[in-house]
C-alpha cells in the first residue's frame, strides 16, 4: 500500500466511526435487570469512603457498581486473571474506539488487543478515561496535607500488593461517575449536577479478570473538602453474550477485539 492508500483507509475508518457513534446503540439491546435478585447474586460489598475492594470475575460474570449516594468518582484497575501482565490499557481503549466517552456499548480493552470487560448498562453516562484517580500529591495540592487521607494511587498499590503484584503493576486507570469534559481549548471541566444517587454501571467480564475499585474522589471533583460516600458493588451471574450482543457488534473495532478475545478463550 502507498502512503495515499493508508491515508484513504484511515480516514474511511474515521468516518465510519463517526457514523456508528451517531447511531449507537445497534445490535440486540442488553436488558439487564434493574434489581439484581438474590439468585443471580454471587457476592456483594459496600465499599466505604476512601477504601478499595478487589473482585475476581469469570468470563461472563458481571459487576454492578452502584453510586448509592452520588459520590464524585470511583476509580478502577483491571488485570487478566490468567496473566496479570495483561491489563487495562487507557490509551488503546480510547484510541481504538475513537472516543474518550465510555458508556453503554463500549469496551474496556487490554494492552493485548482484547476485551477485558464490556459496559452492558450505564445509568450515569459520565466516566473519565483521561485523568485517572486521586494521588497523595494531588490531594495535598487541593485540600492540604493530611497523612490519614486515602487516595486511589496508594489504594491500587495496596490492592496490587495483596495480589503479589507491586507498584509496577499499577498503571493508568478509569474513573466511573466522573463527569469531565474537555473544552475547545483543551481545558478540563467538571460538569456539575449530573451525578444522581442510585446511578449504576454494569461491567461484564469478557475474560477472567481481577478488578480493583478505589472509592476516592476524582482529582477534579468539586468542593473544598475531601468528601467521598460509600458505594455498593454486586457480582452477579449475567446472561451469556450472544453473537448479536450490542457490545460485540456495535463497531467493526469491537468485532475484531472480540475475535482476538474469543480466540484465546476457546483455546483455554
Amino acid at each position, binding site marked *: 500500500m502507498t*502512503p*495515499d492508500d*493508508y*491515508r484513504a*483507509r*484511515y480516514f474511511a*475508518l*474515521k468516518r465510519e*466511526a*463517526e457514523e456508528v*457513534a451517531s447511531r449507537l446503540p445497534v445490535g440486540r439491546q442488553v436488558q439487564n435487570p434493574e434489581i439484581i435478585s438474590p439468585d443471580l447474586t454471587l457476592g456483594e460489598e459496600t465499599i466505604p469512603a476512601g477504601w478499595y475492594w478487589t473482585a475476581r470475575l469469570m468470563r461472563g460474570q458481571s459487576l454492578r457498581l452502584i453510586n448509592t449516594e452520588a459520590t464524585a468518582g470511583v476509580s478502577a484497575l483491571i488485570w487478566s486473571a490468567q496473566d496479570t*501482565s495483561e491489563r487495562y*490499557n*487507557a*490509551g*488503546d481503549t*480510547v*484510541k*481504538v474506539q*475513537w*472516543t*474518550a*466517552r465510555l458508556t453503554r456499548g463500549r469496551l474496556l*480493552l487490554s*494492552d*493485548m*488487543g*482484547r476485551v477485558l470487560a464490556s459496559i452492558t448498562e450505564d445509568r450515569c453516562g459520565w466516566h473519565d478515561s*483521561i*485523568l*485517572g*484517580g486521586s*494521588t*497523595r*500529591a*494531588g490531594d495535598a*495540592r487541593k485540600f492540604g496535607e493530611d497523612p490519614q487521607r486515602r487516595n486511589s*494511587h496508594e489504594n491500587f498499590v495496596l490492592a496490587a500488593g495483596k495480589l503479589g503484584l*507491586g*507498584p*509496577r*503493576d*499499577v*498503571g*493508568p*486507570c478509569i474513573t466511573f461517575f466522573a463527569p469531565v*469534559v*474537555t*473544552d*475547545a*481549548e*483543551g*481545558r*478540563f471541566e467538571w460538569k456539575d449536577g449530573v451525578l444522581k444517587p442510585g446511578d449504576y454501571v454494569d461491567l461484564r467480564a469478557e475474560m477472567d479478570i481481577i478488578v480493583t475499585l478505589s472509592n476516592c474522589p476524582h482529582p*477534579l471533583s468539586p468542593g473544598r473538602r475531601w468528601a467521598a460516600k460509600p458505594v455498593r458493588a454486586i457480582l452477579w451471574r449475567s446472561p451469556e453474550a450472544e453473537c448479536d450482543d450490542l457490545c460485540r457488534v456495535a463497531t467493526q*473495532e469491537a468485532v*475484531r*477485539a472480540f*475475535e*482476538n478475545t474469543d480466540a484465546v478463550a476457546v483455546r483455554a
Partner: protein
Amino acid sequence: MSRDPAAAITNDIVPALVPWSGFVRKGQTLRIVDTKGQQAVDTLFYCAGNFAERYDAQATLAAQGAAYIGKGTPILSNEGRLMLTVTEDTVGQHDTSAGACSCEANTVRFGHQTRFMHACRENFLVELARHGMTKRDLVSNINFFMNVPILPSGELAIVDGISKPGDYVELRAEMDVLCVISNCPQVNNPCNGFNPTPIQILIWDGA
C-alpha cells in the same frame, strides 16, 4: 533560547522506526527534534534510581488541568514528584492520552492483516529490556509531535500533525531520569504523515 549543538554532550540521529534510550541528569536539558516534520516520538521517563517511579500521564494532565503537553507543562511521576519541565516547544501541543501503537491494537483498529507490522511497543519492549524492565513497565507515554484533539463530545482521533521540519521540544530534568523513546513506525494513521522519518536527540549540561 537557542542552544549550540556543538556544545551538546549527546547529539544522536535516531533513524526512522527504531528505539533510543539515555539518561538525562538533573539540570541537563533534553531536546527532541522532529527533523522532517509530522513525526510522532513516543517517549517514556523513569526515575533513574528507582524505575518503579515513572512518568504518569494522568497525574500530569490532572495537575495542569489541560489535555495536552506544551511549554511549561510539569512532567510528574506516579509518586507526584516533578521529573522534568517542558522549557521550549516550537509546536504548541502534544498528545499523552492515546498511548503507543502495538501489533495487537493495530489488528483491532486497522484489521488483522496489520498484525505483522512493526510498532512502538516492539521498540519499547526491546529498549526497556536493556534496562531490566518488561511489559509491566509500559505505561501511557507522551507522543511528542502527535496531534490528538479531544473534542467536547469526547471524540478523540489522531489527525494530521502540525509540526514542521526542525520543530523541537526541550525538557529540563528536575531529577535524574531514564528517557526511553520509540521513533514511531506507524503508517496506518497520520501520526507520521504516513512516512516515518529520523529524529535528533540532543542533551546539554546545565541551564
